[in-house]
């Protein structure tokens, strides 16, 4: 090897090795455990190969968790993008430069909160008796109780709203900044071309921003996969299994209810495979 190229290698290799160890060791270990029948209560185990995986597909609670995870992913990603684009365009259209700065500052604050803090804040806001978010309902109905977090039909959306509150507002700031970077002439040309304001955005500005908006959506999709802390604090997967996503279910199987770590690992491995396949396909699709 020529002498000149050895310096970069010297710097890069140790970091890469550490990264590889940190990422590959747990992954490989999870795969190995998934093929065994380890439990937290005993040290004895044997190789059961794929039986954990077969069991999963007849586990109705697992299938429910898959469905909840898909719902969570779709609801949070779509709602975040809708809120971000809606608010971003609205600020771009009506707010003066000074107001925009104020809004941007305000909209960044939620995402700066740690997830657990945000979850606690909103858990209290959704409190049926004292919560500020349920106050209008009590006021309008003369004191009727509404507890969004303990109704199976609303719990997922109530938790998702916190996620959207954090990320939708933050992304709105990014969308506004993206709109501000666009050259003004195509917008002016569209105005001369009889386009109404919403048409200018629908046909000109947003298509021009397609690439960054798709990237933003991918960021949010990856971020939405990490919903554990939010759900854990707000509902613990409940009521019943209404908000039990795959990571919640895996956690409770592995550490809370039965200590079946092998079973939980099998779920984690399945999740990993599904995520890799889905994201690779989506990414290829967008690139084409």
């Amino acid at each position, binding site marked *: 090897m020529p002498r000149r190229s050895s310096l970069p290698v010297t710097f890069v290799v140790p970091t890469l090795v550490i990264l590889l160890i940190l990422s590959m060791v747990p992954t490989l270990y999870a795969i190995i455990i998934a093929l065994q029948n380890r439990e937290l209560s005993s040290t004895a185990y044997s190789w059961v190969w794929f039986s954990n995986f077969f069991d999963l597909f007849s586990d109705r609670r697992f299938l429910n968790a898959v469905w909840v995870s898909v719902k969570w992913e779709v609801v949070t990603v779509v709602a975040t993008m809708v809120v971000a684009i809606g608010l971003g365009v609205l600020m771009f259209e009506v707010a003066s430069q000074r107001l925009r700065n104020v809004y941007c500052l305000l909209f960044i604050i939620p995402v700066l909160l740690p997830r657990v803090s945000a979850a606690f804040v909103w858990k209290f806001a959704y409190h049926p008796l004292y919560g500020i978010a349920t106050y209008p309902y009590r006021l309008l109905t003369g004191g009727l109780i509404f507890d969004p977090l303990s109704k199976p039909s609303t719990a997922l959306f109530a938790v998702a709203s916190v996620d959207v509150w954090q990320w939708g507002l933050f992304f709105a700031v990014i969308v506004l900044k993206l709109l501000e970077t666009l*050259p003004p*002439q*195509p917008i*002016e*040309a*569209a*105005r*001369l*071309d*009889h*386009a*109404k304001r919403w*048409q200018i955005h629908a*046909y*000109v500005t947003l*298509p*021009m921003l*397609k690439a960054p908006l798709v990237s933003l959506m991918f960021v949010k999709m990856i971020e939405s996969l990490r919903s554990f802390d939010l759900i854990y604090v707000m509902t613990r997967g409940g009521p019943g299994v209404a908000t039990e996503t795959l990571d919640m279910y895996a956690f409770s199987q592995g550490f809370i209810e039965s200590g079946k770590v092998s079973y939980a690992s099998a779920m984690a491995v399945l999740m990993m495979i599904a995520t890799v396949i889905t994201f690779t396909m989506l990414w290829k699709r967008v690139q084409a």
Partner: protein
Amino acid sequence: MSAIVCSHVDKAYGATTVIRDLNLSIEEHEFVVFLGPSGCGKSTLLRMLAGLEDISGGEVSIGGKVVNDLDPGDRGIAMVFQNYALYPHMTIFDNIAFGLRRQKVPAPEIDKRVRAVAATLGLDPYLGRKPAELSGGQQQRVAIARAMIKTPKVFLFDEPLSNLDAKLRNHMRVEIARLHQSLKTTTVYVTHDQLEAMTLADRIVLLKDGVIEQIGSPAEIYGRPANIFVAGFIGTPNMNFIEVTVARSGNGWTLTGAGTALSIDGAGFHLQPGGRAVLGIRPPDLKTARDGDAGILQGTADLIEFHGNDALVTFGSGGKEISALVPARECPVLHAPVRYMFEEANIHLFDATSGASLRQQ
């Protein structure tokens, strides 16, 4: 009926006034060029006509209708931008069709009209491509097609050729002239390039600091500039200016300055004995002098710029740099003494303080 009328139009950004009490009337089918140095307000004025800038005061009407508060789309105008302003994500076809689609024109008619316009401008082969796949000249042609298809009452061009290279610029200038000849649509064209202005315009509106300095045909502006700014701005190479003192001598006048005394007849000018004036002579109006000629400027050739057919000879006379554009075969050698004469019909005289032309109307 006038196509565009501006009466007492003002434009201010906060405390800064960009355009002051501007009055202008543009006839139908006319090709009017707004010409002026950067920052003179010509683009702002155009954008006010288009509705892209608010009008701070006064009234603008297009086709007999006051348009101050009308949306850009409702003014019956179409505009071509300096940087083309095409929609980068749409094909050329969609770019041209965008305006018609917004007006809900039926699809078969859109197709027919886009193809007709594309044929006129030679864009047929590119209809399926994106703007980025086209050259600058082709992109500008798409921008013109997008404006043409709306069959507007008025075309507005905002420095459409500035982004093109010199050769393409000449080519597109001819195309725009041809287009105006065949369509006869009223056109307002903004440029800082006097060659574009001279070749395209029926009338030139020369602006400086938001005020109209002169309105007239290219020949009028070149031949009878209203003031010293217009005289200096129009014409390449620039007009020579010599500060002179005016004195009476016999039936005529003597202009003393730049180390010489020049005798002129003075008819056609308002001259005051003892007054100060600025004498303007265009370099091409200076001819190599023969013995016995009157009106002679002489000095030593300091700089010779060869232009091809002609050469620009710069010489010092009484501490003043004067340029003469002479045929290349009469070009002197560097540092040789030179003598040039002018005919009185070709000179311009301006008031030394106000800068206004002293020519009698």
